[in-house]
């Protein structure tokens, strides 16, 4: 039964010199890794540095100096002027963001719950189309929505922009909650049904209370997305309710005469401040949200 031919002495593996070698700690390769990462980090931080830097300089320094130099005579004037220019937009963005986060989260949770546990016929197909919709350029649907809202008399108002954010936020919100509920053991749901729970009772008393982690992730993603939105706010919000991003662009790109770069940068920072703050504070949740939404989707 010896299938193996009588062993010739095994051939040595290639060469095999035994060299006393590298100590693992600071090899050239490792130094290279750190060097690359640090240079990349500097490249990524450059715009932030320049933004902050410029916003504290008086215009004179900007005209004369170079964009990397630190301010000699730092001043807060640009910030005051910037706030004056975009504060209206700031409060508009807040007014838009709150309902545009709460409602999509609620609907996303209900959708995710129904899709995960109840699975009515055709729901999965509907969900598939919804997900596909998330990838479609918004220009395909913008005008019909404008037309419908104009005819309903609500175009250019706060409710209009909120409804639009609900529509375009639904795919991601539903995806997040559906994937989250998919990881909840099905037996939990079955036990609740045996206990006599119906659709809404199980949702409100069992599932929703368990959903805090995903609600946090969803809130972070939705607030960031709504706050950073430009195109929907531009079209649907109406002149009274323009969000900060739109106002910012108007201030910077449509003023004639000398451009006040320091004010512009301060205004840009103010506009980016809320999502950046959320990002820096929530860190890991932010990443979790991306992973949950993007990878599974």
């Amino acid at each position: 039964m010896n299938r193996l031919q009588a062993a010739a002495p095994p051939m040595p593996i290639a060469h095999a010199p035994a060299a006393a070698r590298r100590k693992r700690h600071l090899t050239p390769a490792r130094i290279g890794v750190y060097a690359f990462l640090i240079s990349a980090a500097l490249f990524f931080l450059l715009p932030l540095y320049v933004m902050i830097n410029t916003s504290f300089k008086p215009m004179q320094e900007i005209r004369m100096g170079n964009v990397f130099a630190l301010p000699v005579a730092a001043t807060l004037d640009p910030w005051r002027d910037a706030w004056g220019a975009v504060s209206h937009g700031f409060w508009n963005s807040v007014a838009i963001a709150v309902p545009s986060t709460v409602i999509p989260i609620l609907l996303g949770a209900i959708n995710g719950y129904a899709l995960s546990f109840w699975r009515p016929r055709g729901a999965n197909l509907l969900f598939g189309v919804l997900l596909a919709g998330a990838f479609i350029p918004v220009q395909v649907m913008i005008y019909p929505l404008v037309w419908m809202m104009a005819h309903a008399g609500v175009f250019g108002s706060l409710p209009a922009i909120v409804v639009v954010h609900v529509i375009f936020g639904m795919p991601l919100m539903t995806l997040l909650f559906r994937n989250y509920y998919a990881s909840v053991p099905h037996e939990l749901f079955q036990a609740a049904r045996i206990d006599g729970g119906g659709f809404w009772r199980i949702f409100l008393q069992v599932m929703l209370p368990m959903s805090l982690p995903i609600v946090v992730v969803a809130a972070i993603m939705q607030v960031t997305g709504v706050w950073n939105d430009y195109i929907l706010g531009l079209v649907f919000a109406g002149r009274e309710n323009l969000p900060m991003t739109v106002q910012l662009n108007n201030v910077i790109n449509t003023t004639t005469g000398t451009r006040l770069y320091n004010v512009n940068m301060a205004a840009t920072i103010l506009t980016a401040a809320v999502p950046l703050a959320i990002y820096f504070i929530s860190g890991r949740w932010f990443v979790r949200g991306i992973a949950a939404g993007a990878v599974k989707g």
Partner: protein
Amino acid sequence: MSNVHLRKLCITRGNNEIIRDLDLQIDPGEFLVLLGPSGCGKSTLLHSIAGLIDLSGGAIEIGGRDMSHADPSERGIGMVFQSYALYPTMSVEQNMSFGLKIAGTPKAEVQRRVRRTAEMLQLDALLERKPAQLSGGQRQRVAIGRALVREAGVYLFDEPLSNLDAKLRAELRRELKMLHQTLGSTMIYVTHDQAEAMTLATRIVVMQGGRIQQIGTPADVYDTPANRFVAGFLGSPSMNFIEGSVDAQGSFGAGAITLPLGRADAVGAVTLAARPEHLHVDDNGPLDARVTLVEPMGNHQVVWLDCAGQQLSCIVHDARPLATSQAVRFGIDAGRVSLFDPASGKRV
């Protein structure tokens, strides 16, 4: 086949000294098993022999050459991992030939070795398949094949059977033993399963806390354990331990239990250890006990006895009926017991 010589090996990770001053000599053609519970350092030791973990001190010699700082691929070793670690996007044939190709082995030689190893391990029909299309046992064979094509001096195995179900494990265990008999290569094998160690090893190294507790053949380690840890680790059900003392006449006594041993050299407090198979239920036996539990195992019974407060296990080879709370008499085979110092745990 190469020998392996470990000299005063020290491995430290962070502030933990995982292995300290370890000496070990492995002869060519041995099947050496590193046996011990989780965290005893056996895997760390194996990885350091492979060159995957750096040494903090000491030296490793493989095949007579100092390999303490050599790259894993230059040590003349092959390794089989616990999770198989097959390259998932490559076929079986590519998995097995990848290392050889990297080393610049000529194509004809690569083909020859792959074909030969595939035949040996019954993989010839599976060469084009990807790992995802194979069963657990087949994947394990591919992992072994990938190591064997290197035609190395030493083969290292890191708990290769622990991801398999019990039946498959027993089957592959036998195949591994036959492989060793066929190839005669030096093999170093890590496991926490003492049954695997007993059946496969030519010598077993029992480890605990980063230190070697005992080195010996399976028979040595089983019959004459060097300390209490080794005694308790091998054998299932484990050895019975009875705290007591040896008197001037060399007899052991622990309360109601007495056993003449003729061990006048071991006077004082001792722990007596006796394997379950060396306790005999015997109507003429010197000791009394009451049955607390009977576990029928098919070809034998494990009987748990309460003897003056001591819980002892005993293996009964016939099918005699024994009921709970039944009073029985039993004896202990004095020639097969071990004595340990209660303080140090060492064999007396």
